[in-house]
């Protein structure tokens, strides 16, 4: 009975929301803020990827919050799962292809990851996407060899420094008498690799942090067997 009610309720809710949403003017957004950003972003931040200028510039503090959420999730997961990991031999070793393929892919993934991070202000992609690829690079060997373990200490150092350098860059602007997280060193080289001032640096921090965070999280999840 309750199942049926729930189903009806959910459907009804969706239907009503649809009725509300159909009143929206689809495909012609007001673009109040978006439009303004589109026209000023290249000058203000020097990044051709306007999404990047939004992510790191206009809404930089969102990104900082987002990083913090990842960090918090990782820390919380760490708290929940604890530090004791059993690299139990119960899991079978990966096969030949997985093992060696993983080893071969590792440098490739690293390269792609960093490429995407460094070109985040120019092309689609950026710190998040690159970071995830980096995390995959580290996680792949783990799948192949369950016995292997990531160097958690290293990861946490990376993540700590990456996160704090993001803030430090922001604070640097503050110490220069500008607003927190204000882009600095904006060169007049739109479209070049070395452009957009501190944005690539921020993206690097983001990428490293995301990478380390996800890798840590994944390895936690993969390796936790039981608390004894």
């Amino acid at each position, binding site marked *: 009975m309750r199942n049926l009610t729930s189903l009806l309720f959910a459907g009804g809710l969706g239907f*009503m*929301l649809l009725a*509300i*949403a159909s*009143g*929206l003017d689809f495909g012609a*957004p*007001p*673009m*109040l*803020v*978006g439009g*303004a*950003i589109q026209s*000023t972003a290249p000058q*203000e931040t020097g990044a051709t990827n306007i999404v990047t200028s939004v992510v790191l*510039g*206009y*809404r*930089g*503090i*969102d990104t*900082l*919050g*987002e990083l*913090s*959420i990842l*960090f*918090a*999730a990782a*820390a*919380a997961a*760490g*708290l*929940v799962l604890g*530090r004791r990991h059993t690299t139990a031999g119960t899991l079978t070793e990966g096969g030949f292809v997985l093992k060696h393929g993983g080893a071969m892919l590792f440098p490739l993934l690293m390269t792609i990851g960093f490429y995407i991070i460094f070109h985040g202000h120019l092309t689609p992609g950026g710190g998040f996407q690159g970071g995830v690829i980096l995390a995959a690079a580290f996680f792949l060997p783990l799948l192949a060899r369950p016995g292997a373990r990531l160097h958690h*200490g290293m990861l*946490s*150092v990376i*993540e*700590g*420094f990456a*996160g*704090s350098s993001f*803030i*430090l860059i*922001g*604070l640097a*602007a*503050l110490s220069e*008498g*500008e*607003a*927190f*997280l*204000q*882009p600095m060193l904006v060169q007049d080289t739109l479209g070049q690799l070395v452009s957009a001032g501190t944005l690539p640096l921020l993206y690097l921090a983001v990428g490293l942090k995301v990478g380390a965070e996800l890798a840590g999280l994944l390895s936690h999840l993969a390796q936790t067997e039981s608390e004894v």
Partner: protein
Amino acid sequence: MSDLIVLPLVLPLFGAFLLPIVMRTSISIGAWIGPAILAYGCWILGDQWMSGTALPFSLAIGGFAPPMGINLYIDSLALLFAFAVQLLGLLFWPFKIDQETARRQALMLLLVAASTGLALSGDLFNLYVFYELVAVATFGLIAASGSSAAYASTIRYLILSGIGSVLTLLGIALIYSQTGTLNLAHLAQLAPEQLNNKLGLTAFLTILIGVGVKAELFPVNTWAPEVYATAASRVSAFLAGLVSKLALLIILRLLVLIFHQPEAVQVMLVLGILGVITGELAAWRAKDVRRMLAFSSIGQLGMIFIALAIPEQGGLLAVLALTFHHLLIKSGLFMLADGWGGAIEKLRGAAKRSPLAAAIFVLFSLSLIGMPPLPGFWAKFTLITQLAAQTSPLYLIGLTVFLLATVIEAAYLFRLAALLYGPAAEDTPIDTIPKPAGLSLATASLFGIGLLAAALFITPVGDLLSHVAGQAANADLYINTVFAGTGGSQ
């Protein structure tokens, strides 16, 4: 000077990121980072308050002018909340040193930072981000108590909160689709034309329900009893005392600035009334202290929602008075529950074991019930005069429920007080009666002193709150402040 206001928001994040690294090398140094940062945050905010910088002012993050970039809006209310966050963070600091110290303290710092962000931010989506950060940090801290029940309650809370987030996000998406902006001040300008319709109302309601999860809005507050019963007392105190109020703050800002529809407040009124009824009635039968406090907290938040539904500035004053009063009281009570957390029956004769704790409990109870001249009375007085002034019968129902709930509240609180002061059970030696831990008791005493001080200086406190409410209720001031002076860089 006013630029530095961003530090209480950023430094805890910074500290949180660095803490694991520092802890790795030296725990004794690391243990000082958090308190130092929070103390510094308190100092900055206090200094800001004292320095007499013209409030309110707006601070653009990254130097981008407000509708495009994100701005912090600092008025007296925001400053007060931010200060309370930092101070409570300090008071509820998880000092315990063990293997997980770094993570726990980092989470605490993140929670403080996010809460500060909630208090200060002037951008809808940014609020959402900080809200989520609060949520995640909270989950971590609840689960940190390590019991299976804590995990179970966390996951239940997490799922509920997750749905809430989805709804909030949906509401934000609707608002953005309609208006194309997220800045609260900008929205406030656009709202009369663009959001004064069903779509706007739907968006508000989805956000209300989403944010209501944290604000213990009935009926999405079912997590509260189990979470407060399983989490560490300090975490519960922070959640019940502060986080719920910050969620309320979001709703308050939305109401004042954007959504003026009568339906919006009516929904809150009805849900608030239901919250009061269910919370207080459930507390009547609660058999353990924590859940009693949890239910009582639900009831109190319900009262605040009722107050929030009063559309005038007087209502806002009532909201603030109730909010800060409940903040003091409930934090203090949860501190006492640290040690008194078990069954109520076990507390027979506890006053002999710890007279101070019992006295503080009685003090808090009296204020919660609203005995003059304690501050609780003035809060309730403000509320009922405002409620009675409304013409809609729904408000009178609210008034009645509120008054009846107070009676029930008095009954269950003083049943416990009578138990505390009654004779101990015959087979229990006095040493085995539970007693709040020293540190918690000291913290609770601080809250008690604060309460008494507020009672003593009720006139200036009242004036201050009216001033704050006046500022917070002024939507034009908000808009003008944000768009006139972006502060900071330029």
